[in-house]
């Protein structure tokens, strides 16, 4: 019996109604199922989206090899999820602020972070978060603690709002598992209460390590969690870069214009293990994985580009050579990066190192060289 049936005194009144839309342009077969947004006619843009997805796809496979060869630390792959970050980050301007999560290599790459910086971070070198590109001065580093970054993004959005900056918004991401954390709800709540210029994307790759969506939540969609925060929620095909870009663009435009926050649930699938040290075969059925490969983003975009005569097989092969070369170049930079001086473990703790730590710093010099 549902609670509403308990009310026998009067006819039940429904006080609120909600609806969650699903948005898709490009289906699994690479065919349009809705009228294409205007940016689809921009061949340079569409090819650069395709190139970035391909590059990150190749990068992922390369990092796995580096890890197996013992040249790389634990890495959180994005195989099959490249369109989420690429589509979303492609909507950001230099004026906006990006707050990544740990599975944000594609978005960071589009934003201007070099692959070798991403490799440095996961390879165990803090300098990977000191983004070299001066345009990224305000962008956040990768956080490991799930959902904590959403509050940082809300804080940046608060600063934008307090300073009455126009045409500026914040984009951040979280995994599906992260939507179970308190910080997720706290961020949604304040984003609604304060009408913050914030866009939150849930990278719903269906798995939180070994935990499937079905164990994570009883909600039909994760997008509907926006309703509790009083903000707009929408579900998108995250393997469709056109939809990702169209929806994020609209949400960012709304945020920049003072229209408040949006929660976007991007439906995708994790085709790799949770990290390079995880073995997903222990919990993912191979039939499910095979089916998911049919829906991945790279193939469907390629089909569409070829159908629309923006790409042919020869160009595609060239693009692939170019991408592989970029990945190799970046891996070389990473592998040849000299290690930081041992004293660097002290150098960035405070603006000025407290006197009490000087003897510890001297000790590391004495025992590890300077």
């Amino acid at each position, binding site marked *: 019996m549902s609670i509403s049936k308990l009310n026998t005194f009067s006819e039940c009144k429904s006080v609120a109604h909600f609806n969650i839309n699903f948005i898709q342009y490009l289906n699994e077969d690479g065919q349009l199922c809705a009228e294409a947004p205007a940016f689809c006619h921009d061949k340079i843009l569409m090819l650069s989206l395709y190139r970035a997805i391909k590059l990150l796809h190749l990068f992922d496979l390369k990092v796995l090899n580096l890890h197996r060869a013992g040249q790389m630390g634990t890495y959180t792959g994005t195989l099959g999820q490249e369109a989420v970050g690429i589509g979303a980050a492609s909507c950001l301007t230099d004026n906006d602020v990006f707050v990544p999560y740990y599975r944000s290599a594609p978005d960071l790459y589009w934003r201007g972070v070099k692959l070798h910086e991403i490799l440095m971070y996961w390879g165990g070198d*803090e300098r990977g978060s000191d*983004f070299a590109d001066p345009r990224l001065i305000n962008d956040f580093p990768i956080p490991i603690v799930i959902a904590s970054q959403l509050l940082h993004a809300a804080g940046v959005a608060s600063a934008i709002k307090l300073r009455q900056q126009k045409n500026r918004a914040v984009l951040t991401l979280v995994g599906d598992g992260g939507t179970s954390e308190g910080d997720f709800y706290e961020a949604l*709540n304040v984003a609604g209460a304060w009408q913050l210029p914030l866009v939150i994307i849930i990278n719903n790759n269906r798995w939180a390590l070994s935990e499937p969506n079905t164990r994570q939540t009883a909600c039909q969609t994760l997008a509907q969690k926006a309703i509790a925060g009083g903000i707009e929620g929408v579900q998108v095909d995250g393997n469709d870069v056109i939809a990702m870009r169209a929806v994020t663009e609209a949400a960012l435009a709304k945020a920049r214009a003072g229209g408040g926050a949006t929660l976007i649930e991007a439906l995708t699938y994790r085709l790799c293990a949770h990290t390079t040290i995880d073995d997903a075969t222990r919990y993912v059925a191979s039939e499910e994985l095979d089916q998911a490969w049919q829906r991945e983003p790279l193939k469907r975009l390629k089909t569409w580009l070829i159908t629309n005569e923006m790409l042919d097989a020869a160009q595609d092969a060239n693009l692939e050579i170019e991408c592989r070369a970029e990945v190799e170049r970046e891996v070389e930079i990473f592998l040849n990066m000299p290690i930081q001086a041992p004293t660097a473990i002290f150098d960035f703790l405070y603006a000025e190192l407290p006197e009490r730590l000087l003897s510890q710093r001297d000790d590391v010099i004495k025992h590890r060289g300077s």
Partner: protein
Amino acid sequence: MQLLSIAESINLALDHEMANNPDVVLLGQDIAKTGGVFRVTQGLYEKYGEQRVLDTPLAESMIVGLSVGMASQGLRPIAEIQFMGFIFPGFNQIATAVARMRNRTRGRITLPMVIRMPYGGGIHAPEHHSESTEALLAHLPGLKIVIPSSPSRAYGLLLAAIRDPDPVIFLEPKRIYRSQKHALGKNNEAYPIGSCFIDRVGSDITLVSWGAMLRETHQVADELAKMSIDCEVIDVATISPLDMRSIFESVAKTGRCVIVQEAARNCSVASEIAAELVEHGLRLLKAPVTRITGYDTIMPYPKMEHYYMPSVERIREAVLRVMEYQ
């Protein structure tokens, strides 16, 4: 000159910095029209408006996390947590972002922010309103932890905390929020963070304390002076990073040290000071370094909290015991 309590001098310091720096913003629960549960921010909302004094939703992780985002953009957020006992939902943000952001980004993103919170027992408050868990915070590298003990120090140290380029946790001893009134020193003058204050010069024994417990510590020093025991009293004021140099200098003179803290003993700031003295200053010592602390119990509810709090008697007894060593 105007005489002010600790609560009032904190209010004045906030007012000063808000007037001088438009980047300073306050945020917290009930801090705007209400002025916070202890009225520390009273009047600032009326003066600086809702863009500068922000009532937040009820969520400590959010208050700290928002401050991280705001500080990263060059604002100087000053967050109020209603009671130190409620920082635990925000502890995650303190430990994983506040303390680490400068290091994580090799100095690219810095967090000039302050988290203020009333702490300590002795005011007959409900459960969770009376703990002194400063050691939990002091254990985290990357933070500065400041505890004033008087109105003028609250004023000067808070100015310094707000102007500091790094995150500062500012713990306000609520038991003495309004128990004493001082004339403040020079307006706008910050006191250094990371330095002890020598409250009383003496030659027989060094008494080290901070926050509200300095009241009892001074009382003991006054009493013992009548018995010709000459106590030096040090207010640590910054519990992280500790100014051990001043403590060593004092103990070099007196050869004896009693540390008085309200917090439980196990793995505490008093333990750290004692360990430093023994490890690096054994030859200076004429007697064992002694700690008078709260017990290693859950802070009792109001009816029994006086059993927990270090008393004048316990401190006096410890000092006399230490003085017996020749």
